[in-house]
């Protein structure tokens, strides 16, 4: 089992993107998915960094793929998706309409925002050309086990969400703009103010969700450290780690040590807690429970 | 067609004697009604499914007592307000709101959104009961006449004028209010 870095869902400055991927080139991860996942309006601000990042990641021995947008509606977004194919890298499909542009037989990856819930869907995608699939984070363990067997038979590498705020929903509406009382079309890119998203709590102060433009994430960071061994035994080939603005290189190193057997899940969680005292964790989906729960406990009121 | 409203109440002329009279004959008559009704409409219990063994408190706020429904045992009994044993779920609203919902003149969610109905406790059980009763297309007058034959004739004679007089949905709505 190895590590895949998810596309960064947040809006970072070009400088922040450059230094993030430069550092990541030396990290103990096997592959990196790059590109704009959440909002096409952000792309002009950082798209020039993508070729540089591809070069430095490949120089660092990483496999690199480019993601589609999570929700494609506009004409220019469709064109953007069609153009992804000409760039010579595997495309990770995160909106099924990208398949319309991928000819039968051309290999592609499937991201966690595509609904792969069962054998029929996995087999269909495999026969259409999928070689790597990251399962939706909400999938129960029993489903993961069934799909791992099918994936092995079909020759598909299967990934599971390993770490990071869970991508829970995508919308046509921009909640960041709404919180600033702006329309999406005149958002003035307010999502850039929140490099890990903007937290949303309940009226009683329970930490709950995080908005990131048109995306809604969990406020808690999923941490599947406790489940890594079970997932490896099922035949899962990679854990997926989502970029965050601080401490990501240390986090990659810890997960790599965990997979190598040099670090216990408990020690990894303690390291994370020490480095990020404010970070709240969850692993409920891995326990067939409410996603927000952590090690069997509900979020305290 | 009566206008569906939540502010029609039962005339005091009726509620005052109910406040004084003993409740056991009421409970007996109500359970007789529940037994007949569930026997005639077996699909109700089928739809209530796993919530059959739940107890429902039906608090018709303009009656001087509350009703407690036990679907599995086909019991519908009256208790003084505050004296009923604990229930799994409670639905409260005016007689008008309950009748309008039962007779298909008003939507339960609409009554709930407007505050005419309140629910507490096990929301799933309430939904199961509401949906089961809605599907059964009951006509309470006919069910009462069926369960308590001695009431059939007076009911037949009085329901239509009473409906006009009170504005209550005393019979099943086969046509619905115009909304445009």
């Amino acid at each position, binding site marked *: 089992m190895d590590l895949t870095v998810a596309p960064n869902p947040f809006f970072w400055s070009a400088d922040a993107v450059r230094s993030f991927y430069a550092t990541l080139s030396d990290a103990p991860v096997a592959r990196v998915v790059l590109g704009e996942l959440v909002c096409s309006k952000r792309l002009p601000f950082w798209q020039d960094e993508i070729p540089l990042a591809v070069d430095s990641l490949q120089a660092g021995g990483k496999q690199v793929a480019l993601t589609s947008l999570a929700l*494609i509606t506009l004409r220019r977004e*469709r064109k953007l998706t069609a153009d992804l194919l000409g760039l010579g890298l595997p495309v990770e499909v995160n*909106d*099924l*309409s990208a398949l319309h542009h991928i000819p039968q037989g051309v290999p592609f990856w499937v991201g966690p*925002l595509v*609904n792969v*819930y*069962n*054998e*029929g869907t996995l087999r*269909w*995608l495999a026969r259409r050309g999928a070689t790597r699939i990251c399962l939706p984070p*909400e999938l129960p363990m*029993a*489903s993961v086990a*069934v799909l791992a067997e099918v994936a092995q038979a079909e020759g598909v590498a299967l990934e599971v969400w390993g770490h990071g705020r869970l991508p*829970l*929903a995508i919308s*046509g*509406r921009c*909640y960041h703009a709404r*919180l600033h009382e702006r*329309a*999406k*079309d005149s958002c003035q890119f307010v999502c850039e103010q929140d490099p890990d998203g*903007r*937290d*949303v709590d*309940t*009226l*009683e*102060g329970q930490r*709950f969700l995080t908005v990131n433009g048109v995306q809604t994430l969990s406020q808690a960071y999923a941490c599947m450290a406790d489940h890594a061994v079970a997932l490896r035994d099922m035949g899962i080939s990679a854990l997926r780690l989502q970029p965050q603005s601080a401490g990501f290189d240390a986090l990659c190193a810890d997960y790599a040590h965990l997979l190598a057997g040099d670090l216990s899940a408990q020690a990894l969680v303690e390291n994370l807690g020490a480095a990020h005292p404010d970070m709240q964790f969850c692993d409920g989906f891995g326990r067939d*429970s*409410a*996603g*927000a729960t952590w090690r069997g406990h509900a979020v305290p009121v | 067609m009566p206008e569906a409203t939540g502010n029609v109440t039962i005339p005091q002329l009726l509620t005052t004697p109910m406040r004084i009279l003993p409740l056991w004959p009421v409970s007996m008559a109500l359970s007789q009604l529940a037994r007949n009704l569930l026997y005639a409409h077996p699909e109700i219990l089928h*739809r*209530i*499914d796993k*919530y059959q063994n739940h107890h429902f408190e039906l608090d018709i706020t303009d009656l001087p007592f509350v009703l407690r429904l036990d679907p599995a045992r086909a019991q519908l009994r009256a208790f003084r307000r505050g004296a009923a044993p604990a229930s799994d779920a409670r639905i409260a609203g005016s007689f008008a709101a309950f009748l309008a919902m039962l007779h*298909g*003149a008003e*939507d*339960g969610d*609409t009554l709930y*959104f407007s505050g005419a109905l309140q629910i*507490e406790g096990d*929301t*799933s*059980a309430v*939904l199961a009961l509401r*949906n089961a009763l*809605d*599907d059964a*297309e009951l006509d309470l007058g006919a069910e009462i006449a069926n369960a308590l034959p001695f009431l059939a004739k007076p009911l037949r004679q009085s329901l239509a004028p009473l409906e006009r007089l009170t504005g209550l949905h005393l019979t099943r709505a086969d046509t*619905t209010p115009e*909304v*445009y």
Partner: protein
Amino acid sequence: MELVCPAGTPAALRAAVDAGAHCIYCGFADETNARNFPGLNFSRSELAQAVGYAHARGAKVLVAINTFPTAGKETLWHSAVADAETAGADAVILADLGLLAHTAERHPDLRRHLSVQAAAANPDAINFYAQAFDVRRVVLPRVLSVEEIAAINREIDVETEVFVFGGLCVMAEGRCSLSSYATGRSPNMNGVCSPPEHVDYATEGTDSVARLGGFTIHRTPKGGVAPYPTLCKGCFTSGDKTGHVFEDAVSLDASKLVPKLAKAGVTALKIEGRQRSRAYVAQIVRAFRAVTDALEDGRDPPALALARLSEGQAATTGAYAKTWR
């Protein structure tokens, strides 16, 4: 235009047919459909009877099998498709790739509609489903403006169906795990969003509180209306802002947009609400039938007064107006 109306029970289906529905959609009483609520939906024999009732009166019945089959339990969904065909359903409404592939292969003559749960939001997605699985109609997600719908219709060869009334998902449908994050039950897998068994209403001091999976969704002064705790319509705090971060407690009413939707090339108008009663179904269907009839006759459609039937008793035209975003 065709009016596609909801039915959660056989009584609601008859009410819809009697009120003038051209088409009724319903589902089986299990996890195969996206309105898997207690006391709702159809048994196999109820569906067969309902199809008979509708067909005798010139109406069609569509069966929604629009959740995503659970790994290892696909036969439940496969038999739902087979049983819908046996009952004489005019079409099935599907969302899952694997189930679409299965249905196209094993039940080629059964008409296939693409559920809103598949969130096909652009011509490429729709053309993909049409070519891969011979889907004949697509229910468009509620993230599109009227102009975008018109543009989509110019680029596709299949029919489109759009929501005109009822509950409003603010997230792309079929791609939302908010409810399972809070409760562990997934709209995609279990067919229920904000499941009632995880709803808790409580009175605390002078407030009525509604919680979902332990998370507070609404807190209102006692005596006020505590809306059903649908997560995306909840009241939350973010920084210095407190309010409805995602959407107010409103539902969709696009009745005034029907002529524009017709011009945009839409084939069918869909009314949400399989969880609502036969009274609701009858009232809404009658109202919208007056609109489609007027349109057919070249008259101005009547203005509808439906707000009181809506959640929060307030309505929005949602994404159909571009400013909603």
